[in-house]
């Protein structure tokens, strides 16, 4: 029952806006945890805080026992905590394979490894992972030419290439053709079970998150209003109110 991510009383303000107010949550290693809440409730802000995109105003965030709230983004990523973005971020002018190759962790990462060649074995791993998300056929195509949904898949496989310990997924099924969503769910479950990667997932699609998550946290107006198992959350009046807009 080890906690891989411990968010403790985190506050984040943007000017006068309280984007995150006294957020505390724990993610158990190896689990899939959901983060839900209406638009503007502070979910992506929390992701940004955890990933290091901006500093937090109060509180602490610990990943695998290390304090990460003071670290810049690359440092957090190197510890094994990666995140995907709502608007997909990929390297548009490079083809899928290159996107994958550059996403792998280099064996040595110092000044002298700048000019090392990328090992040929990585090509195989890249192709396997691309196959895992169903992009093997598109592997030589420029990432920028992929459809939005395909780019989302590419982003996921790029993250997997990096062998993270934990993934923050920001709306992984948003914008995806409904018929393909089951495929995504299956893959995410596989990523969690077979690769052992802990997942913290922001989702608006209730069906998806209820299927995926073992535990769900709900945010509204920057605050944590509920947490529990999917069944508990489904019937939680506060959650229902938040989504239906009752003030």
């Amino acid at each position, binding site marked *: 029952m080890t906690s891989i991510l411990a968010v403790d009383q985190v506050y984040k303000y943007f000017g006068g806006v309280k984007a995150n107010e006294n957020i505390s949550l724990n993610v158990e290693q190896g689990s899939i945890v959901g983060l839900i809440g209406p638009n503007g409730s502070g979910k992506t802000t929390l992701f940004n805080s955890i990933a290091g995109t901006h500093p937090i105003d109060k509180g602490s965030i610990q990943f695998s026992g290390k304090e990460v709230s003071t670290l810049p983004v*690359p440092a957090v990523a190197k510890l094994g905590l990666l995140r995907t973005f709502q608007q997909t*971020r990929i390297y548009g*002018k490079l083809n899928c394979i290159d996107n994958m*190759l*550059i996403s792998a962790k280099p064996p040595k990462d110092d000044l002298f490894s*700048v000019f090392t060649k*990328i090992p040929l074995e990585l090509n195989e791993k890249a192709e396997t992972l691309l196959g895992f998300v169903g992009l093997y056929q598109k592997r030589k195509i*420029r990432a920028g*030419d992929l*459809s939005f949904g395909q780019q989302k898949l590419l982003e996921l496989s790029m993250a997997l290439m990096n062998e993270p310990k934990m993934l923050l997924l920001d709306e992984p099924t948003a914008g995806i053709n409904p018929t393909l969503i089951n495929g995504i769910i299956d893959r995410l479950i596989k990523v969690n079970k077979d690769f052992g990667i802990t997942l913290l997932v922001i989702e608006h699609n209730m069906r998806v998150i209820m299927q995926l998550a073992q535990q769900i946290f709900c945010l509204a107006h920057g605050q944590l209003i509920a947490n529990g198992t999917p069944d508990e959350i489904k019937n939680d009046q506060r959650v229902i109110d938040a989504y239906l807009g009752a003030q």
Partner: protein
Amino acid sequence: MNNKIIFYGLIVAFGLVAPFLFPAFKLQISIMLILIILSLTWDVQGGQMGYNTFGNILFFGLGMYICSSFQIGLFFPLAEWTASGGEKTFVHTPTQFFQGFVVGLVLSGIIPALVAALIGYGILGLRGHYFAICTLGLGIAAGELAGGIELVGAGQGMTSPPWPKGIGDTELRSEFFYYICFTLMVCTFLFLRWAYTTRFGLVLNAIRDNEDKAEAMGINTMRYKITGWVVSAFFVGMAGGLMGNMIGYIEPVETAFAGRTFGVFMVLMAILGGKGTLWGPVIGAIAFHIFKEGFWTFFLGWQYVALGALIVIVVIFFPEGIMGWFREKYPERFGEEIDEEDRKAEVELK
């Protein structure tokens, strides 16, 4: 693979005999080689990394001054040389000249590289417009400052060491500098060709395509940005050192920190040829040079106006350049696959 070796071999062979095939154009071809170096090194930032630099001329000018200053300063008091007519009182012996040249040339690569390493952390932290205008400011400021330093001739500039007497004529001089230029160009090209096959190349491209993503994936982008600038500074600096020697007279704003000429050329050539590719800048430099030499007289009087118009036209209508045009037409040659169905679907969606 064999085709490639033959191809490169032919180029080297041609390069070696060119001074004898076109004896009247030795200086011209040397300058073209310098332009290729300028274009290739600009592309490391501008094309591969997506950072529009208008300040690489800083390293060119630095290299120019450093090379000549050491060539002179090793043997004679520099201040007296740069004083009016001073260069007439001091004469290099052949040994002095070549010793000075070697030291000067090496330093004209190393010192700009060190400067790049020093200021890189600050300057390369800027992006987009801010980086562009900041580097523009650096390049111009350098020229203005050099114009105030008495030691290197201030606004009047200084002469670079003349060819020593007794070892051949101007032809030999031209040939000497030609071969040095050619060697430097080949070294620059081969180094970059190799560098682009390593992590370095892919990281630069990743930074160009989405720097935030690269950081989010754990890449230490600053390390690569600075390395790239150091590499560019090194080769551009030496190109400057060579140019100073070839031209014979170094003026701060017109020759050394020549933002309005070489500074602009290096941007135009890389884009014209195809930024972000290895051969693009080379082709662009050659095409530009031929255009410039061939049609300069055509445009007599308003050449630079035509140059300005050319930049606008190329940037707006032809931003992918010659190589980009080829890429669109023959993507398979570049190892790319275009999925026609996807392409059409995308177009409809948009």
